[in-house]
């Protein structure tokens, strides 16, 4: 491996650089079919760095051309032409459309196919369809772009990652995140400790396309990690024979919150306390503070990209440097990325050997604000002032008492939100490199046979620390509180496979494509923490985890007569996490396709340009349970204050852990049927997919029969879920002309997920509480139960009076026993949508372009925990010591005195339509320099009835939500 790497580097140093005295050639490059000029076509002197690009009228001029030089003319979608220079001063060139290259190539995992020949539910989303704006997290590029893919942005923290669900996920306790493969390297599904988003080290600017594999026919080649779908990310590379190009791109953005949680102001609060019997108004202050105004600020951000690319004969490269910096709307929050991407390609031996080195290196810096300030700002008494010099809390006001003659903080009181932000540091630096070397070799003696080696690693090193000084009221100990940590995540990959592709003379012509290979991947993580606990400093035990996955895989695809497609694949995965007796899982898949448009009765049609039927079956697995050695009985020594007194000594303890010797793969069976169509030369195109999935041997943390194991809950294989859905994607070119183009993309997904079995027993009323809420300890608002979606809420049905006001404590007595007990709670509504959609508009007139993206979600509900936790009078008055807490204004509507956490009053419809982004841009093409400017607004408009800050909260429990900012982005791009 090392030899290969060194050789590659050596080759790079041997870059051919030759200079001769020469002439100049000019000319025009045009389409052969229409005669229209082709702007942007490449003109290169083969084997040199000498080249140019045609201008807007297809004209070019290239100097320093010597007799005998070969000029290559190339443009994407057209066949490349080569002309030998023999002293002509003008060379006009007509390029022919290349049907072979026109057909879009899509990756399918350990290989590629054409869009026409794909038999699975596969969708490619290219850069021109990406969301506009100052996008920091890569997944945001494709939010709303693909049917069946739901991307819920995280909170509004800078660089915060979102949640990706393909077809809604299928598991309970195992991960529901898709497998993400970057340039052939599957990333660790557990993410990177200390980082806001495991994908942030991939610069969005450098992403060429995303390929989403949705059904098992497509994903099962990834075996045990494929149940939640697979996203293949391909980054941009250099191109053969292209002149040197340098570009600089900058996006400057500003954002601010557009709404605040509705709480009582000082005047309302003061009168409420005065009016509540048994309160002591002297505990109130005489200020008027809007705590939310105190903690939020305007966020500013900038994203710079410097890119250089060139193709010098068969060596081509792309280099990119990215600097991204953004402060959050919550004061003190900050994200910075410094990324250096390298893509080097070298083709050797008449292109028989292709070497690709891609390396994504980043240094992320984070400052994490204490997000506890968000909840504190909602609850802190608005009659108190921010500052108070007379108190010993760093100049801030805090609720206090006198102890032994000293002023100390009240123990469980809400802390001053501004002090939480100011008297706290939480810094992090993450270094990461995702690097891989890919070698593809076509055998001389058998060019149909190709050997591929893909060796990669993903190494992340995070260091950081938190610090809270003694003076801060939130520090209740007697020393400065700190914690310093170091995390390493490492993932090594070696894939090798053979691919054999040929035409055989069977039923006219059959294209045969066979792949077989082996893969090994090892994941290692290490973490070490030194910090304080109470008044002591501890060097906490190191955490080391290692797991490995070994796989064999094979695929065979046949294209019979360019009409009938048959494909089958199998993967065998062996995981170190599974007990030896269950270690190997086998994941087969089969799919068929019928290209109707190639049948005689359609091939001549002017209306139908494409019509293909697809059907597939596949099995996949899921073992992303977040822990290793789950099948081994382990012993854990105790740490910290977990010793027991025997006589005068304190003996540390040793605990045997629960385990399931038979823990095995979660397996998913998937059926998919689809149709792809294109009408009027594909001006209207799209696809419809329907799927049915069954997850068996579901891995879930469930109550274990009491006494049978060494804990109350056990991660084990239990139960099944069934999900089904329909996805429609449509694309229409409303206008297609030289000056004016207008495309609309629309997708809609209907989905339904249901737990069909959850226990070894047969009790139909069995359920497992889920979804912890704020307010009280151990309160859950959701449940897992047979027959219900896993995000179903579990609530009392509120009774209302004639005026439509909720009557405090009055609930429907479901079981009719004349009292309201827990037995009267009912499963009701759910957090996941029934259907969701995306609409993208792109339009350009000459050099002006305009685009926007709408996204909508319907049938989803949110439990408004912000209202339920602070929306009753005792939440403000019945506090553990001498202070009062502010209330949600909702209390004025309900008048609730006591907590009514489980009332479905707080369950609110959260259907929404969002205008995610709207962008207008203008391109100024120049002789040597292209310039582009754009203006984008993101998170522009939210249409919803939901009463909270934002109807889009993953999991459906709205509490302490970090508001997303509305941003305005100015983008400038200049390319030489």
């Amino acid at each position, binding site marked *: 491996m090392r030899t290969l790497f060194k050789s590659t580097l050596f080759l790079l140093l041997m870059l051919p650089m030759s200079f001769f005295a020469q002439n100049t050639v000019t000319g025009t490059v045009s389409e052969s079919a229409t005669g229209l000029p082709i702007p942007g076509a490449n003109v290169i002197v083969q084997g040199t760095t000498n080249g140019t690009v045609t201008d807007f009228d297809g004209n070019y001029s290239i100097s320093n051309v010597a007799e005998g030089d070969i000029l290559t003319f190339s443009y994407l979608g057209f066949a490349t032409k080569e002309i030998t220079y023999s002293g002509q001063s003008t060379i006009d060139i007509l390029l022919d459309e290349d049907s072979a290259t026109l057909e879009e190539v899509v990756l399918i995992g350990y290989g590629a196919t054409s869009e026409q020949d794909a038999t699975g539910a596969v969708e490619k989303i290219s850069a021109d369809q990406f969301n506009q704006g100052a996008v920091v997290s890569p997944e945001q590029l494709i939010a709303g772009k693909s049917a069946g893919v739901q991307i819920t942005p995280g909170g509004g923290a800078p660089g915060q990652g979102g949640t990706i669900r393909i077809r809604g996920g299928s598991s309970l306790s195992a991960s529901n995140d898709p497998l993400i493969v970057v340039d052939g390297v599957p990333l660790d599904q557990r993410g990177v400790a200390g980082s806001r988003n495991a994908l942030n080290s991939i610069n969005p600017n450098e992403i060429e396309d995303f390929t989403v594999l949705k059904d098992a026919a497509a994903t099962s080649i990834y075996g045990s990690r494929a149940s939640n779908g697979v996203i293949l990310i391909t980054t941009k590379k250099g191109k053969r024979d292209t002149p040197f190009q340098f570009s600089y791109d900058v996006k400057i953005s500003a954002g601010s919150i557009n709404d605040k949680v509705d709480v009582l102001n000082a005047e309302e609060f003061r009168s409420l306390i005065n009016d509540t019997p048994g309160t002591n108004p002297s505990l109130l202050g005489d200020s008027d503070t809007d705590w939310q105004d105190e903690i939020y600020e305007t966020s500013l951000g900038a994203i710079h990209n410097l890119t250089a690319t060139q193709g010098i004969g068969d060596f081509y490269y792309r280099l990119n440097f990215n600097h991204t910096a953004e402060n959050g709307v919550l004061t003190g929050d900050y994200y910075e990325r410094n990324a250096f991407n390298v893509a080097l390609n070298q083709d050797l031996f008449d292109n028989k050997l292709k070497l690709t080195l891609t390396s994504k290196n980043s240094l992320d810096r984070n400052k994490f604000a204490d997000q506890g300030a968000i909840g504190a700002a909602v609850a802190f008494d608005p009659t108190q002032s921010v500052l108070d010099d007379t108190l010993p809390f760093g100049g801030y006001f805090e609720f206090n008492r006198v102890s032994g003659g000293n002023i100390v903080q009240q123990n469980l009181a809400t802390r001053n939100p501004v002090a939480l932000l100011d008297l706290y540091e939480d810094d992090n630096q993450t270094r990461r490199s995702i690097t891989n070397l890919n070698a593809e070799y076509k055998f001389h003696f058998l060019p149909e046979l190709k050997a591929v080696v893909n060796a990669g690693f993903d190494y992340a090193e995070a260091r950081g620390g938190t610090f809270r000084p003694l003076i801060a009221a939130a520090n209740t100990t007697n020393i400065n509180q700190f914690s310093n940590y170091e995390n390493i995540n490492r993932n090594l990959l070696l894939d090798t496979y053979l691919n054999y592709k040929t035409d055989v003379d069977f039923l006219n012509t059959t294209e045969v494509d066979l792949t077989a290979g082996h893969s090994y991947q090892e994941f290692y993580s290490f973490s070490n923490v030194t910090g304080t606990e*109470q008044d002591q400093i501890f060097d906490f035990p190191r955490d080391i985890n290692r797991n490995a996955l070994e796989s064999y895989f094979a695929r065979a695809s046949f294209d019979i007569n360019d009409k009938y497609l048959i494909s089958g694949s199998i993967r065998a995965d062996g995981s170190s996490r599974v007990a030896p007796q269950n270690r190997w899982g086998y994941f087969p898949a089969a799919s068929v396709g019928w290209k109707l448009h190639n049948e005689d009765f359609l091939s001549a049609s002017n209306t139908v340009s494409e019509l293909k039927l697809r059907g597939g079956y596949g099995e996949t697995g899921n073992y992303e349970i977040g822990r290793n050695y789950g099948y081994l009985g382990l012993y854990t020594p105790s740490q910290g204050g977990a010793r027991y007194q025997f006589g005068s000594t304190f003996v540390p303890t040793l605990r045997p852990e629960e385990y399931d010797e038979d823990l095995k793969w979660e397996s998913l069976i998937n059926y998919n049927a689809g149709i792809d169509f294109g009408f009027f030369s594909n001006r209207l195109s799209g696809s419809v997919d329907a799927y049915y999935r069954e997850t068996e041997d579901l891995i879930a943390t469930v109550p274990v029969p009491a006494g049978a194991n060494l804990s109350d809950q056990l991660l084990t294989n239990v139960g099944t879920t069934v999900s089904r859905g329909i996805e429609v994607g449509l694309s229409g070119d409303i206008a297609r002309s030289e000056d004016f183009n207008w495309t609309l993309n629309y997708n809609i997904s209907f989905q339904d997920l249901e737990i069909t079995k959850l226990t070894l027993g047969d009790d139909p009323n069995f359920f497992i509480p889920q979804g912890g809420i704020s307010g009280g300890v151990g309160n859950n608002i959701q449940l897992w139960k047979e027959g219900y979606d896993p995000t179903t809420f579990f609530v009392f049905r509120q009774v209302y009076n004639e005026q439509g006001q909720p009557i405090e404590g009055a609930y429907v007595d479901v079981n009719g026993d004349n009292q309201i007990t827990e037995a009267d709670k009912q499963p009701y509504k759910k957090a996941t949508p029934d259907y969701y959609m995306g609409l993208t508009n792109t339009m350009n007139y000459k050099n002006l372009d305009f685009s926007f993206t709408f996204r909508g979600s319907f049938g989803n509900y949110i439990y408004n925990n912000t209202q339920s936790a602070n929306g009753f009078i005792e939440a403000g008055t019945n506090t553990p010591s001498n202070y009062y807490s502010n209330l949600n204004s909702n209390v004025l509507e309900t008048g609730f005195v006591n907590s009514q956490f489980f009332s479905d009053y707080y369950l609110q419809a959260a259907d929404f339509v969002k205008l995610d982004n709207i962008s207008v841009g203008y391109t100024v093409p120049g002789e040597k320099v292209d310039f582009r400017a754009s203006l984008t607004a993101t998170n522009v408009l939210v249409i919803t009835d939901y009463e909270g800050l934002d109807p889009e909260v993953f999991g459906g429990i709205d509490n302490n939500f970090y508001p997303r900012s509305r941003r305005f982005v100015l983008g400038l791009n200049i390319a030489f």
Partner: protein
Amino acid sequence: MFNKLKSTFLVLFGLAVLWSCESELDLEPEDNRETSESAFEDPEAYKQFLAKLYAGFAISGQDGPAGDPDLSGLDEGFSQYMRLYWKLQELTTDEAVIGWNDGTIKDLHNQNWTSGNEFIRTMYSRVMYQIAQSNEYLRQTEPSVLDGRGVDAATQDQIAVYRAEARFLRALSYWHALDLYGNPPFVTEEDAVGAFLPEQISSNELFDYIESELLAIEGELIDAGANEYGRADKAAAWMLLSKLYLNAEKYTGTGRYNEVVTYTDKVIDANYSLVDDYQKLFLADNNSNGAQNEIIFPITFDGINTQAYGGMTFIIHAAVGGEMDPDDFGINGGWAGLRTTSALVNKFLDNEDDAIEEVEDERAIFFTEGQSKEIEDISSFTDGYAVAKYKNIDTNGNAGSDPTGDFPDTDFPMFRLADAYLMYAEAVLRGGGGSEADALAYINELRERAYGNSDNNISSSDLSLNFILAERARELYWEAHRRTDLIRFGQFSDGGVWPFKGGVPQGTTTESFRDLMPIPASDLGVNTNLTQNPGY
């Protein structure tokens, strides 16, 4: 050059294809976690594992105070053994109410709990967890297993005592299971660890099992008072036997009061003595201020070494609120939850209108400033007198060892001599033989300590069962005995009324099936061998 590269590539490719890594799929922990083979290489492990069994009553996991919980079904602090046991034994009675909004916590005092109640569920899980851990201990310390590991004879002798203590702790938890749930699942060291469905055991059979276990280990345990502080000895087993026999009529239908007299006698004859000042039993230094001579079996806590958000941390913090000064309790602040009802307060009063502050009984340790005696709103801390019995200060008024004031040093007196006196007297009254004169003398010993003189001693005519029940409340309130006592006297559900019983301010009786807690719905759902207790 290129040819060399090509051949290098081919060789590498060949190697990569052939490289099989299957052996690298057998991975074991590389950090401080151990497999069962490596864990016991150090003989200290046997003592540490035993310490885990004891710590199971005091702390909630492997990272004190919190961070690596034993149970995952409920918040870690809430899932602690003594906290749950205390809640089920006290909040369900006239001795305590709690003001919080945590799930179904108020259903305990309202006596309208269902089989879905998470406190009842988690207590059940905790008890069965403790039993499963003890079983694992017994499996790992089988003499044949020890021989296999080459453990020397001296260590094996030591481990034999540990095993007896492990069986005592298991019997203690099984007694809690019997008392609370009646018919729990039954597992012993004969069962393997897995996901099998344990069989349900009847109260009668479980009674016999606990009795036989305690009798079997009686000879193996260290003599009364001779073991290290914190560890169980013969007297602990006698106390547990006495408790078991005293409630036998409830468990099996047959009274066993003679045995109560036998075993409380053994305790009383052993070298225990009442501490001079009642308050000392509940202070930070109750392991050294003389109370240790009265406490037969403590659950120990320590501000530095034995930290949890349950146990004494809960009992002390949750009882402080309102006008109470946290400094007086050696803590950094109250959690403002626990108070008592007027029913307990009145037990100290000759006339209900008397002021509790005037009462000479030093056991009446209430905080009344800013508190109302009667409760209007359970959620409001100032409704109902606060109980100031437990404190994290020592005899001299100094706070415990934790400088942050979070975690107390105060040990929980699970079994103490005063309880043995009261059980003896009750068994005598219930016809268990013994000496009525001794019974009277024991009771008066307690009263003399309480009043500091003999003015309030009782005569034999005062000594009745009703008196015993009230005296048990006065002596042992908030020590997790009340529910069991009320059930034994028929005063828990369909008899007996106190404020907010049944969820109404004046209190009302409930149905008698509530003498047993329900088998949690979650376990019924996964274990088809189980049948729900009647009424639920």
